[in-house]
């Protein structure tokens, strides 16, 4: 029996109807992960004992009438930046190989409370910074659609495990687009929640003012289910918002008639003709459903990028300062060069970046006063071919995701189809602060209208 084509909701129905057990589902997932890992490198570490113990517990609880919610008994994976007690949090780095966590990350705790089953820790770029870099202790994850093309990152293993049909959901982090970019290039859904919506406690930081944690998923509905479990206040994360959590599934399937969609045209300056055509197609589909679609003004894309690069390098250098001084040669060359550059900024530069960031965020808020969500691109084009040492300033064109790390707004990458070469295309939707419920409603409509739900993932094509 294959579980590859089922949603989290479908799997939950089977578990509750006793059509299958969490142990059976978990064994299937572990076997699929092990079989695919030789070619796709999605997992740094597969955890059969840990996973089967959690699955057996879930089955015992179901038998006793205990139901922990929609992720109960469902396998998931965690990017290897998240702490799991007793296991190393390698961050895909030589430096982290022996860094054994003493406690679970907040989101791992939440998923355990919800009965989810952790099957493994997933590949990333070194410290979520930059890649793919072949000079690391683990190989880079490969794109299941076309292995010669990169996955994007840094939540590369999370995206690959989902796109290849192994998992329905995985944890990722997003500092400049690290959930959304690999989602775009692997045909998965990537949701970066509002800054402060999901706790970052126990997640290794890259840039504390820009880091977000969130789910990657097979479908928008799966992402909504995951966010429902992940979201919430954590007093031990000082940036976590003490706000009520909405019902993220309530709007799924509701019509988009009358909703206002603003196309952020100035953020599309580097988009390919194909990407622009895809945006226009989605806009037309939404108009046909009765949504109002019009252009809105935002600041220029390049300005967001300059602010993100500076903040990321300054804060990243601060995080790694000790290891940069003592053992810089143990970093991969891409990370070492990038992190070292953080020493080239002054305190005045840093404060100017924070001020510029605030001005940019206010400008995006003004745009979001005119509409319900912004529509733009996740990536300028489909997944590029792998090159061993891409130019750090232009790995795949300017980032179209990092504006919303600057502003903290929730943003989601939604797959919308395949290009003529068979690579996934996507759009990015951006919501109001803490407006994930409406964002997911519109994302769900885009997923359905685009025809993506009829596209078979590569594992299913084989």
């Amino acid at each position: 029996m294959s579980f590859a084509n089922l949603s989290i909701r479908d799997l939950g129905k089977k578990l509750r109807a006793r059509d299958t057990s969490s142990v059976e589902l978990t064994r299937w997932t572990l076997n699929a992960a092990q079989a695919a890992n030789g070619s796709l490198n999605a997992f740094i570490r597969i955890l059969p004992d840990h996973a089967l113990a959690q699955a057996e517990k879930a089955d015992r609880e179901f038998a006793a009438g205990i139901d922990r919610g929609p992720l109960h008994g469902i396998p998931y994976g965690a990017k290897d930046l998240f702490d799991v007690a007793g296991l190393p949090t390698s961050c895909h780095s030589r430096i982290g190989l022996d860094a054994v966590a003493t406690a679970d990350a907040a989101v791992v705790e939440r998923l355990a409370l919800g009965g989810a089953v952790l099957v493994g820790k997933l590949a990333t770029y070194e410290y979520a910074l930059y890649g793919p870099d072949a000079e690391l202790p683990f190989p880079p994850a490969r794109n299941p659609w076309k292995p010669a093309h990169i996955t994007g990152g840094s939540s590369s293993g999370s995206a690959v495990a989902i796109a290849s049909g192994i998992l329905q959901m995985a944890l990722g982090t997003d500092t400049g687009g690290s959930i959304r970019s690999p989602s775009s290039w692997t045909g998965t859904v990537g949701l970066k929640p509002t800054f402060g919506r999901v706790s970052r406690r126990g997640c290794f930081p890259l840039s504390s003012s820009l880091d977000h944690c969130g789910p990657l998923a097979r479908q928008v509905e799966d992402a909504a289910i995951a966010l429902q479990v992940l979201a919430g206040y954590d007093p031990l994360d000082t940036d976590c918002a003490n706000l009520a959590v909405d019902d993220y599934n309530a709007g799924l399937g509701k019509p988009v008639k009358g909703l206002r969609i603003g196309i952020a045209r100035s953020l599309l300056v580097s988009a390919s003709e194909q990407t622009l055509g895809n945006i226009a197609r989605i806009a037309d589909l939404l108009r046909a459903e009765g949504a109002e679609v019009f252009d809105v003004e935002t600041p220029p894309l390049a300005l967001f990028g300059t602010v993100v690069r500076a903040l990321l390098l300054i804060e990243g250098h601060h995080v790694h300062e000790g290891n940069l001084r003592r053992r810089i040669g143990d970093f991969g060359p891409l990370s070492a060069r990038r992190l070292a550059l953080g020493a080239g900024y002054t305190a005045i530069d840093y404060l100017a970046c924070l001020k510029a960031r605030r001005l940019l965020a206010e400008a995006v808020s003004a745009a979001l006063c005119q509409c319900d969500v912004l529509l733009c691109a996740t990536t300028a084009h489909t997944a590029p071919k792998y090159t061993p040492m891409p130019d750090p300033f232009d790995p795949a064109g300017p980032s179209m995701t990092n504006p919303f790390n600057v502003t903290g707004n929730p943003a989601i990458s939604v797959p919308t189809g395949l290009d003529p070469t068979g690579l996934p295309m996507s759009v990015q939707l951006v919501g109001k602060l803490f407006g994930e419920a409406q964002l997911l409603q519109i994302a769900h409509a885009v997923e359905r209208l685009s025809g993506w739900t009829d596209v078979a993932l590569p594992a299913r094509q084989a």
Partner: protein
Amino acid sequence: MMPNPSPAAQPFADEFDRLMQRAHLELKPEWREPMLAEFAEMRAELEAIHSFADTRESIVDLRQVITYGRIEK
């Protein structure tokens, strides 16, 4: 022997070396040229950031979390 930086990066070479030494970083010789080019680009980007930040003369409270006080009605 350090490789010679590109002409565009040359004006920044002394400053770059001084900052890396101040940070106690032992860079591999082959990293210097690409890093210097990135440093030059970084400096140009910082000019843009400072200019943009200067467009607001009033004080901005930088201690607040980025979501604070923003209205998106």
